[in-house]
């Protein structure tokens, strides 16, 4: 079975840029995500939101990508927000202690 790709859809408003992700964040796809965020930061918005509703998997390299992006965004005087974080990813963020290090704002509380 082929690994699912990571699709990235970018939507820009005056207040924020939302990147909707679907698929897996791992070593192969993390670079694409990093490049997409870097392009967004060419004209930094007040907030960069990663909508993770469609993310089915995130390995340790993917977590590293999120950490690096968080630093990069804050260097650009912006803020990185994770939204629609699923149960699986929330558990990973809990295990790794990143839930408190990254800004997670779910519209509904994760069960």
């Amino acid at each position, binding site marked *: 079975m082929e690994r699912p790709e990571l699709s990235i859809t970018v939507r820009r408003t005056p207040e924020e840029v939302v990147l909707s992700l679907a698929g897996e964040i791992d070593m192969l796809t993390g670079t694409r995500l990093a490049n997409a965020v870097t392009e967004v930061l060419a004209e930094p918005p007040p907030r960069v939101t990663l909508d993770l509703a469609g993310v089915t998997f995130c390995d*340790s390299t993917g977590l590293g990508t999120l*950490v690096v992006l968080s630093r990069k965004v804050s260097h650009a005087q912006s803020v990185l927000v994770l939204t629609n974080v699923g149960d699986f990813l929330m558990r990973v963020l809990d*295990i790794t202690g990143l839930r408190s290090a990254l800004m997670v704002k779910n519209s509904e509380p994760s069960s």
Partner: protein
Amino acid sequence: MIRELSTNVNTADVAGAGSGGRRVTAAAAPDAPAIPRPSVVGGSEPAPLLDHFREGVVVTDQAGVIREFSEPALRLMPGLAVGRTLAGCGAPALTDGDLTIGDRRVRSRRVDLTVAGVTSIAWYVEDVTDAIARSDALLAERGRARFLAAASQQLGNPLHEDRAARAAVRLAVPTLGEIAVVVLSPRRGRARWWRATGADPAMVDGGVLTGDELPPAVEQALAGNEPSEADWLADQLAEAGWLGDRDRRAVSARVVSLPGSASATGALVVVRDTDPDQHDMQLLRGFAARAGAALDAAVLYRDQAEVAETLQASLAPTEPPAVGGVQWGAAYRPAQSSLRIGGDFYGAHQMPDGGALFYLGDVSGKGVDAAVFTGQIRQGIQALRRIEADPARLLSLLNDAVLETSRSHGQGRFATMVLGRAHSTHSGGLSLTLASGGHLPPIVLRSDGSVETVDLRGMLIGVVPDPRIATVTVQLAPGETCVLFSDGVTEARGGVRGDQFGAARLVDALTGCQRMPAPAVAERVEQVIGDWLGGRNHDDIAVLAVRAVPSGLTARHLHAVPS
């Protein structure tokens, strides 16, 4: 009449004439006069009408008496005279084909001419010495080019100094000489050599010489100079034992450098029965350039392989030490099967108080970069454990060190890990103090066959200053095992649909394994994951099992640890 006929028969007319010659018949007019006989016997003047032929022409009657000849023929056979036989003029007997006259190569062809019923024989003779020399030179050059092309092809393949050197001496015999010796530039004061001989070029022998034992001419060649005193070379080679049973006075020897990228990578010695000419030396140098390039690549590859081997050995996980009351088991499978190293790491150290410090983790990235980072982390733990024994505080110090190196390298590198301390208890079990740096929680195999997941959470190492690091204490009764594992285990994709293995399957796989010794537990995990993967690509996989055993049983075995 004969003169007119002679002037009209040229090379084109006789092209392809057989060895018996071609008979050319001219129908003479009824009133045609008889062919005039030469009036002057012994006349040595060439017939001017024949002189425009490119070839020399000699016309004789059937008795072999010369009737006339041309200037080019006279140049080839200076004694020609009309009215005499060829033999009488001191000229060789002419035959269809090639012959040698003096130092010249001559091609002659016979054409039988019949005019008015009288038959004469015209011999066309051509000096082909230069043409043959040019042809031979061209063939020789083509042969040399073919030899060098074949040599390039055969020498270009082996990235192994022994194979490259063997190929070089095998190829050199017999084209370049009857004996060929390749000597590599000395390494740590010792020079390796290989030799092939004409007796059996496939058979290659060799050996090692110290710097003092090298023939001086070979030393010169290794220094990049071509020795001039070829006379002394055979004596030097005989002393080195390379001439075998050949007489040093009956051979000619040459030595040339095998050029490398920076300096000579070696020397090539060839021994022949005859002195080489300039073409032979050109060929020898051309071959040496190709052999040198191949050997240089092989030597460079060897050096790099040795460096890589040394670095891999230093970065690969090492066997935990014997600690009373603890039995270790480990399994390790890097993502890149060509490497013995990866981004997962584990280790253990005996503490001064008799306990043990142990850890297993995973760094960001893959392959060599990740392995180098694991080496830094392991060295960090090795140093920090001497000043800090508490797992949580040790991880906090390690976090600061990783943050510092990440900043200085400009990389967002981080690690996840579980680090623990093991102490023997009075009951013969172990008390484990575990601290988590954002790693997957360990699982415990209880003596009743149940499997527990340790409730342990913490922050990744190398992400933020002052991370929250949780600790938990786990008691192991004798025979119980705590298993640490990397995410390569739970995230292994396999089965029918390429699903992840997951924590639930891991628990199932270890349920009922409580009686297994620690090495068998680690091996079990690796085997189950291997079956699940079914040959697919995978992340680095690491397992460390810590089992409580009575103090006398510290036997340990590390399965699949790269040696």
